[in-house]
């Protein structure tokens, strides 16, 4: 038998493997959801031919991606070129570790869960930089430059709004933050402090490079931005990590602002997934509705509005907390 000392480690490893499966499965579901939602937004049925109502389409897509030849541009920095997609994908798995999907359904119980997620989600931008630079493509480079500026900028309001919640709950432990909110919507931090929730939501669009803030890959200007030169699973990795990142930030949003796995009638992981998918649906819906903003507008939104608002909100929250006791 395994030494009981190692139980947390074993649990972590099992959870990591499970999370890999979850991320993969989630990507499939999200790809299907994205295409179906896009289809219905655009008044067409979406994928329809592979499987019932196109259910197996994501599998077909994945098969195609995996079967494709991996091309390395002759002038690229080969080591960094292939390190970048891995760097983009692997840390994302780590991000799922501290997330409490249910009361006992978590990988690692750390009291610094929020910090862990924030710390490792920053690695993604490095991956984008390296990908853009290493592919030695001018579009890639411009995409990388945009990714850097955008992530650095949007990380600030994101951190501040997370900090606001941390102050309200007095903890950085995701589990504790969940429990402090009640089962009912009026007990959730998102309702108590809607401004923080709003700022967080806008910031995650910027952080995960989702439309209307998808400038690092803004296809009408930069063809595909940082992943212009990637083919097959190289692109697939970025793709997976984008979806995984979306899931992570939505998980964090549902924990910090929507009461996590708690919900009316009976709490459980179903509430959690429901909230996460509702947020994901909104993000997908926005992508298929809005035009893309321009780069300087994107930064102006952040520096002129979101960051000052987030700071004011933080100060206001502190004052209210002090007054309330």
């Amino acid at each position, binding site marked *: 038998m395994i030494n009981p*000392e*190692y*139980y*947390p*480690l074993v649990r972590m490893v099992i959870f990591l493997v499970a999370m890999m499966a979850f991320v993969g499965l989630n990507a499939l579901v999200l790809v299907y959801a994205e295409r179906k939602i896009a289809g219905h937004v655009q008044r067409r049925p979406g994928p329809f031919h592979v499987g019932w109502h196109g259910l197996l389409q994501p599998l077909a897509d994945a098969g195609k991606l995996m079967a494709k030849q991996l091309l390395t541009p002759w002038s690229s*920095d080969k*080591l*960094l070129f292939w*390190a970048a997609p891995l760097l983009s994908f692997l840390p994302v798995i780590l991000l799922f570790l501290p997330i409490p999907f249910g009361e006992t359904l978590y990988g690692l119980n*750390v*009291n*610094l869960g929020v*910090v*862990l997620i*924030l*710390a*490792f989600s*920053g*690695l993604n*931008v*490095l991956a984008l*930089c*390296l990908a853009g*630079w*290493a592919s030695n493509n001018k579009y890639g*480079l411009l995409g990388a*430059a945009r990714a*850097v*500026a955008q*992530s*650095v900028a949007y*990380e600030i309001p994101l951190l501040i709004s997370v900090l606001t919640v941390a102050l309200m709950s007095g903890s*950085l432990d995701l589990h504790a933050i969940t429990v402090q909110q009640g089962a009912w919507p009026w007990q959730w931090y998102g309702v108590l402090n809607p401004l923080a929730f709003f700022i967080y939501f806008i910031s995650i669009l910027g952080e995960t490079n989702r439309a209307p803030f998808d400038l690092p890959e803004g296809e009408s200007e930069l063809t595909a931005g940082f992943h212009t030169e990637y083919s097959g699973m190289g692109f697939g990795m970025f793709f997976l990590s984008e979806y995984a990142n979306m899931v992570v930030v939505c998980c964090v949003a549902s924990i910090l602002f929507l009461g996590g796995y708690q919900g009316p009638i009976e709490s459980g992981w179903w509430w959690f997934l429901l909230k996460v998918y509702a947020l994901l649906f909104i993000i997908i819906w926005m992508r298929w509705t809005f035009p893309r903003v321009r780069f300087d507008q994107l930064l102006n939104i952040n520096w002129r509005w979101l960051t000052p608002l987030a700071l004011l909100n933080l100060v206001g929250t502190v004052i209210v907390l002090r007054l309330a006791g």
Partner: protein
Amino acid sequence: MQELQALSPYAYGLYLLIILGGSLAAALCKNLIRAMAGLITAMLGAAGMYMMLNAPFVAMMQVLIYVGAVSVLIFFAIMLTKTPAGDSPELGSSSKIAAGLVVGVMPFVFLVSACLNYFKQQVETPPDIPVDQLGQDLLTRYALGFELISVVLFVAMAGAVILGFERRRSQ
């Protein structure tokens, strides 16, 4: 995670390898971006060392600030300045190697001598300090050091901004 004590020698070795490998890459790569990648690796290894010392908060901050933010600023600086981001041949000249050796060896000597003189081997894991106490200490006892570090970050940011402005002015 005190239960994982038994694994610590292996983890220590692993982190050491990461730090050494990363530092060597940072020092020896002629390509600036590769050097930066090495630096990031070394910083990640350092974060692991903090974890070993039972300071998860500091480790996270190491990742958040140094790996996530400072290296991105370095990347920005590389792109904004006229530095050739590719292989730069002039780095290989002998006088520069000599200068690099002096700069590299001196801290090494000082640090090793300091370690040998002042530190005894410590087996016990230091206690995990809660975040609020950490915050208290940082804002009272270690306020000066804390502020100095902020100044470093601030200078890095301001440098990036100034570089950006100078480019704009030259238009």
